[in-house]
């Protein structure tokens, strides 16, 4: 009787999902219509403003992926605007190179922009937040200084004429449609990325980096992709900007402009496309309403940024998030459906055991683990208990690749696991949860769970950018699998809810659903019962037993004796990094030394 209902759920969700998609697209469609019809009611001056807004948005849409999604504080992105502007202008002017057609110049600028975007962005992988922010500021200052000094190419302080695009884009309204078209394409592309596994992976890197690693997401590859894309579109925006200005000099590219782009994204809200789009329009248009405002514009942007950071960190996107203002049911129970696990996890993998042999590890003089033997067999639940400081979490971290053992071996099916390779564990179908749930608070529960399946997507970044069929197949697959996982753990009703509205216990089960997306051969749980009520612990236990029965090897690190003794097939007790006892729960429960160690003594 249960099965048919479960099968019904996903397709109903799909219908609701497409209804959701249409309501999400509505604002964009409205803006599209407004933009196309604009010349009918806007005068020449407003046409210029609108063109400028489109040009800025071309840059901001790419920067949005870097700042809003990846969470990198790239303040000096005006450097790429400068680069693109000068590149297209110089190439079309024909003073240094033979004069090239403007479209070709734009493409070359995009390539150069992509390269420099990567150069500017890569330090983000090594540097802390503030340090990276400062380097982008420094870079922006330097690019402007170079433009000033390299007179033979850039014309120095005198400047150079911007490119002129051939008809039909040579007239003001023609050029407006050109820029509007590019802006619309950029909106579409970045919206595609946002709704792809790459967009979700970026938010995971931003807000839950540890969980991203455990899901197999490679930070360098992903950041490289967005930096290249962002650099390329920024350079294109530069070319358009030069054409709009007709003539560019270095002092058109002030840090103020960079700040405008950056603030537009933050006012709009991170992780959103619509928010920063509205933010860009707002910031471009605002100073036009009163002459004195123009001089004070950067001051106002900064003041607005301060207000947003202190009062509404989610920005415009948060204000427009009506869906998440609806109150949730107050007494929500998490009711897992273990019978769905067989469908979710598929047939048990042919993996052997996960073994630790004589593993030892010390930190600065303290022996955290000292000669530990442990074997996790598929289909069994293995408990790892012990007092604080006994090495339980360290053991988990060794298995999941955060630490390399100094002695001994960790092997899967006889083959040694590679050292220090925590982002490869997901590929080996070893999944884990964390002591404190690592969740992307700003994303929905469903999106959080879909992050778990990132490595199962087949489409490349470019395919997602262009919403090609393989991308759409990925999305449908990930969506359905995630809904199944959520139903299995009992949270399907909360799928569209923002994750930071959930209770602690619900977040724990969300993490488990996310881990299940990997169809793991081994599932490692770090104190999953902490903060759960007795009822929830019982349900958690039943769920873990069912996961094991489906063929996964489960390791539970815990304090709570109830959970351990009820569900584990085998228990290992650690004390001061060594095995104190190992055996079945009954053997352990009556073991005198264990009781003493557990109670302290």
């Amino acid at each position, binding site marked *: 009787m249960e099965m048919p209902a479960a099968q019904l759920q996903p397709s109903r969700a799909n219908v609701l999902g497409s209804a959701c998609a249409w309501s999400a697209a509505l604002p964009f469609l409205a803006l599209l219509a407004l933009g196309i019809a604009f010349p009918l009611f806007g005068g020449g001056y407003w046409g210029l403003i609108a063109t400028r807004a489109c040009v800025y948005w071309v840059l901001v849409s790419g920067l949005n992926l870097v700042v809003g999604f990846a969470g990198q504080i790239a303040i000096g992105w005006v450097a790429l605007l400068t680069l693109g502007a000068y590149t297209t202008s110089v190439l079309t002017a024909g003073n240094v190179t033979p004069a090239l057609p403007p479209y070709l110049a734009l493409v070359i600028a995009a390539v150069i922009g992509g390269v420099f975007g990567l150069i500017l962005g890569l330090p983000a992988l090594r540097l802390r937040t503030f340090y990276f922010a400062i380097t982008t500021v420094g870079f922006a200052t330097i690019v402007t200084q170079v433009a000033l000094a390299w007179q033979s190419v850039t014309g120095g302080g005198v400047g150079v004429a911007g490119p002129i695009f051939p008809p039909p884009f040579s007239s003001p309204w023609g050029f407006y449609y050109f820029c509007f078209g590019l802006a619309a394409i950029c909106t579409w592309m970045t919206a595609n990325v946002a709704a792809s596994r790459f967009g979700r992976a970026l938010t995971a890197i931003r807000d839950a980096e540890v969980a991203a690693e455990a899901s197999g997401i490679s930070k360098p590859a992903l950041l490289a992709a967005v930096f290249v894309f962002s650099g390329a579109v920024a350079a294109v925006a530069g070319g358009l900007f030069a054409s709009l200005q007709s003539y560019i000099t270095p002092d058109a590219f002030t840090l103020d402009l960079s700040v405008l782009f950056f603030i537009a994204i933050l006012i709009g809200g991170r992780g959103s496309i619509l928010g920063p789009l509205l933010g860009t329009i707002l910031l471009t248009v605002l100073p036009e309403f009163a002459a004195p405002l123009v001089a004070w514009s950067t001051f106002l942007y900064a003041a607005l940024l301060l207000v947003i950071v202190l009062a509404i960190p989610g920005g415009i996107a948060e204000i427009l998030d009506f869906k998440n203002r609806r109150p949730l049911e107050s007494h929500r129970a998490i009711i897992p459906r273990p019978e769905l696990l067989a469908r979710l996890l598929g047939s048990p993998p042919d993996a052997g055991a996960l073994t630790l042999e004589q593993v030892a590890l010390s930190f600065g003089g303290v022996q955290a683990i000292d000669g530990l033997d442990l074997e996790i067999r598929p289909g069994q639940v293995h408990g790892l208990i012990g007092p604080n400081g006994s090495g339980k979490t360290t053991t988990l971290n060794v298995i999941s690749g955060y630490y390399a053992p100094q002695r001994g071996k960790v092997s899967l099916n006889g083959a040694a696991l590679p050292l220090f390779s925590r982002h490869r564990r997901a590929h080996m179908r070893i999944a884990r949860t964390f002591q404190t749930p690592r969740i992307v608070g700003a994303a929905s529960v469903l999106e959080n769970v879909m992050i778990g399946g990132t490595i199962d997507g087949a489409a490349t970044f470019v395919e997602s950018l262009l919403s090609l069929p393989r991308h759409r197949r990925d999305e449908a697959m990930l969506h359905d699998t995630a809904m199944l996982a959520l139903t299995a753990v009992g949270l399907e009703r909360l799928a569209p809810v923002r994750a930071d509205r959930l209770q602690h216990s619900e977040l724990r089960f969300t993490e488990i659903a996310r881990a299940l997306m990997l169809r793991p051969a081994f599932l490692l749980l770090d104190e999953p019962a902490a903060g759960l009520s007795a009822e929830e612990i019982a349900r958690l236990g039943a769920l873990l037993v069912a996961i094991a029965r489906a063929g996964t090897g489960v390791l539970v690190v815990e304090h709570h004796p109830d959970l351990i003794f009820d569900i584990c097939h085998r228990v290992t007790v650690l004390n001061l990094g060594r095995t104190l006892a190992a055996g079945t729960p009954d053997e352990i429960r009556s073991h005198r030394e264990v009781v003493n160690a557990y109670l*302290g003594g």
Partner: protein
Amino acid sequence: MPISAAEPLLVAVGLCAGYGKISVLRGIDLKLEAGEVVALLGPNGAGKTTLLRALSGLLPWSGSVRFAGRDLAGATPRDTVKAGLAHVIEGHRVFTQLAVLDNLVLAAYGLPRGERTARVEEVLELFPEIAAKQHERASSLSGGQQQILAVAQGLVRRPRLLMLDEPSAGLSPVLVDRVLVVVQRLRDAGTAVLLVEQLIEKALALADRVYALARGSIVLEARTSEPDLPLRLEHAYLATTGRAPPSG
């Protein structure tokens, strides 16, 4: 306002506290008389450290806590220290960049200079082993000596209640005994002590009363003179349902 002789030094009713969304303490009722030594026992994750942090104001809490006749709602650690409640946190964390003497003087921050010097001297007399090293940096002390320094810091302001969070953690048995001798002296001098300890036998030997905490609730309260205490504690921790069987 006269405090009736019957009101205990510390009374907590329905105390709830946690970290962000994770609630750890689920309605604790606890009381402590002046001059008593009370041991707080329980397995890891039960909430013992959380309880001390709530009482001293390091964590926000809800419920009711009264200390020395005052309501502690909204009190910061600075307020509780001034009211006479000292909390020696876990892990013998002293300021290694500063001299031993300066560590102690900092504990008296806010008192007039003359009183500061007098109190610090008093405490140094209680602990000759660190008095000998008073001008050296705290980093040169051994783990056990640092723990003694931390306890000494707690005593500088002559608190009415001293809360110690696992003072024996990471110390050799000899040093553990040394620390517990200090606790005994405090009890003899009339200071109340709330002691969180992992070493059950030693704690029971020292304390007048004991509370056992498990999964965020008090599961046992008894005088240490009662029989069968170790067994009752075991039941209380490992039982799958709430409270321990009564004595007898």
